[in-house]
C-alpha cells in the first residue's frame, strides 16, 4: 500500500512501499509540486530504483526553477539505499522537519 499527499503544512507525505508498481502514481503527484518542497518519508517502508527515479526526475525539474526537494525522516533502511546509490549527495536529507 502506497499513499502520497500534502499535509496541512504543505509538506508532501509518502507512506508504504514505493515500488515499480506505484511509481507512476508517485510521479503523477510530484509532477504537480513547485518550488522547494519538504517530503516526509518517515512512514515510507521501502523504495526501489523506480521510486528513486521518480525523486531524481522531480529534483531535476524543480532545480531548473530554483527549487528542490527536501527529504526528512528516512528510516535506516531507506538511508542505506540513498547512500549506496549516491542519492544522499543529490538531495538535502534532514533527520526531521
Amino acid at each position, binding site marked *: 500500500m502506497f499513499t502520497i499527499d500534502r499535509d496541512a503544512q504543505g509538506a508532501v507525505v509518502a507512506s508504504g*512501499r514505493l*515500488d*515499480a*508498481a506505484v511509481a507512476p502514481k508517485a510521479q503523477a503527484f510530484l509532477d504537480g509540486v513547485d518550488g522547494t518542497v519538504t517530503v516526509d518519508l518517515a512512514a515510507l517502508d*521501502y523504495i*526501489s*530504483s*523506480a521510486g*528513486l*527515479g521518480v525523486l*531524481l*526526475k522531480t*529534483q*531535476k525539474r524543480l*532545480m531548473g526553477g530554483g527549487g528542490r526537494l527536501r527529504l526528512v525522516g528516512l528510516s535506516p*533502511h531507506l538511508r*542505506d*539505499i540513498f*547512500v*549506496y*546509490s*549516491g542519492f544522499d*549527495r*543529490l538531495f538535502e536529507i534532514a533527520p526531521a522537519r
Partner: protein
Amino acid sequence: MEARASRRHLDAYDLEAILGVTQKLAAPFDLSTMLTEVVAAAKQVLDAERGSVWLYDADVDELVMEVATGIAPVRMPSGTGLAGACARSRAIINVPDCYADPRFDARVDRATGYRTRCMLTLPLVDHNGVLVGVMQVLNKRDGAFDADDEALAAALAAQCAVALQRVRMTGALIEGEKMRQALEMAREVQMSTLPSAMPTLAGYDIGTAFRPAELTGGDTYDVSRVDGDVVLVLGDATGHGIAPALSVTQMQAMLRLAFAMGADLATAFIHVNNRLADTLADDRFITAFVGILDPVEHRVRFHSGGQGPILHYVAARDTFVRHGPTSFPLGAMPLAALPAPTELALAPGDLLLVLSDGFYEQTDAEETCFGEERVCAIVRDLRTATSATLIDALLRGIDAFAAGAGQQDDMTAVVVRRETPVEARFARTFDAIPALVAFAEDAFARLRIDPSLRTAVDLALEELFTNMVKYGRGSRADIAIAMAAIDGGVEVALVDRDVEPFDPTGRPPVDVEAPIESREPGGLGVHLIRRMADSVEYEYNTVSRESRITLRYTRRGSAAAVAAVGDGSPDVHD
C-alpha cells in the same frame, strides 16, 4: 478395649501403661524402639520378668525375632512352638508350667541360661485382622498368669499390634520414598543433560522429543553443532531404574566430549564403547545411534550400535529406506575397529527418523506392538509438516493406539527434515509485484529467515523481476522464484526462460559521485543489488535459453556493506 466385670485390679498404673503404648501409636519410632516400648509396657502391665515379640513375615510365612542390632534375627516357621501355635490359632495361649507343655521349645532357655516357668503367648492382630506377630510374656513375679492377666494382655496386644504395624508400614513407605527420590534424582540428571534448545541450522528443521516412562527408562538424545557439522545422538540403555538412566547420561556426556575434542565418528564411537564396556555391568549395554550431519553437502554418516530401525524418508520416491545397525550395542564388548558407517544423502523434503524402541514397541491392550508400519503411515501423512508437528502426531498416534494401556518405555525421537525451498511462478507483468511481496513475506516466515534481510531481498526481487518483464517481452513463460535458507541468511534464485541473456553482474558500475545532471535512473537497481547482496551469480543455458540469477544475503554480509559505506572505502562487492 474389652472390659471385664470380673477384673480385680486394673489400677491407674496399669491403665497408664496401656494408654502410654496407645499414645506411642503416633510416635515416630523406628521398629526396634517400638518393640522395646511394647515389651516394656507388657512387662509392667502384667508384672512379668521378661517379654519378647516375634514379627510375622507373611512373605515367607515365618516368625522373626529381632535379638539385637547387628545380629541376624532369629527366624522360625510360623507353625513351630508356642509362638507358632498362637500365630496359627490367633488365640491367647496361657501355659502355667512350660516344661510340662510339649509345645514349649526349651532351646532358648538352654542358650540363655534363663528358666521360663510360665508364659502368656498373645497374637498381635491389627484393626484390619492382619497378623502382625506374636508377643510372649514370661514369668509372672508372683505365680502364674490368670484370666485377668489374659484380659489385660489382650487389650495391650491390640494396641501393640496397631503400633507395630504402623511402624512397619511407615518403614516400607520410607524405603519406597527413598527409592522414589533416588529415581527422581537419576531422572533429573538424565533430563538435565538433554539439550535445552536445538541449534539453528539453515535449510534444516530438527525436532526432538523425550517422553519419559513413569519409572526411569534409559533413553537420551543429543543434537549439537561441532564446527560446521551437527552431531546427532540417540541412546537407550537396557533395563529400567537408576543405573540405566545414569549410564546413558554418561554415554551422552562422553560422546559430547569426544566430538568437542575433535574425534571423528569412528574414534568417538569406539572409545566411548570401550570405556562403557569397562564400566558397565556385564549384563548391561546401550543401543545407540551416533550420526554426523553435514548441512552443506547434505549427507549423514552414522553408526548404529544395535539401534534400529533408522528410517530415511526419500521424498522424491515417496518411500522409506530402512537402515539396520552397523555395530553392536555400546558397552556390550570392546571394539578394535568398526565397519564403514552408513551414509545417506538428504534431498529437499527428505526426513531422517531416529526413534527409540519405546515408539515401536508400545503395545495396546491386546499386546500388539505399535510397530514400524504405523510409524511410517503417520510420517507419510505429515511428510511436509514441521518435525515438531510430526513428532507430536506420532505421540498422539501412540496414545490413541495404546488406549490407556500405559507407556511402557521412554519414548525418544530425533527427526531431521531437510527443508524444501519455497518456490512460486509469476506472470510476466508489473501487476505481479504485490504477489512478489506476499511471496517474500511468506517465504521469510516459513524458512525462519532474519527479517532484517527483507528490504534487500524485496529490492532484488523487484529490480530483477521488472528487468525480466521489460527485457523479456518475447517470452511467454512465467518467471520462477525460489528461496531457501542458508547459514545466517537466505538464497534467492530467479529463473527466466526463453529469453536472451541478461547478465546483471556484467553491467558497468554506476558512478554514484556524478553530478545530478548526468545521473539517470537506469542501472540503479542492479547497482543496489550488487551493493546489498553477499553474492550475485549469473548462469545462462543456451539450449533452454534460460537465465538464472542466484543471490545470497546474510546478516554478516549486510553489516559489512554498511561498514564499507561508513569507511568510505570502495564498493566491496563490485
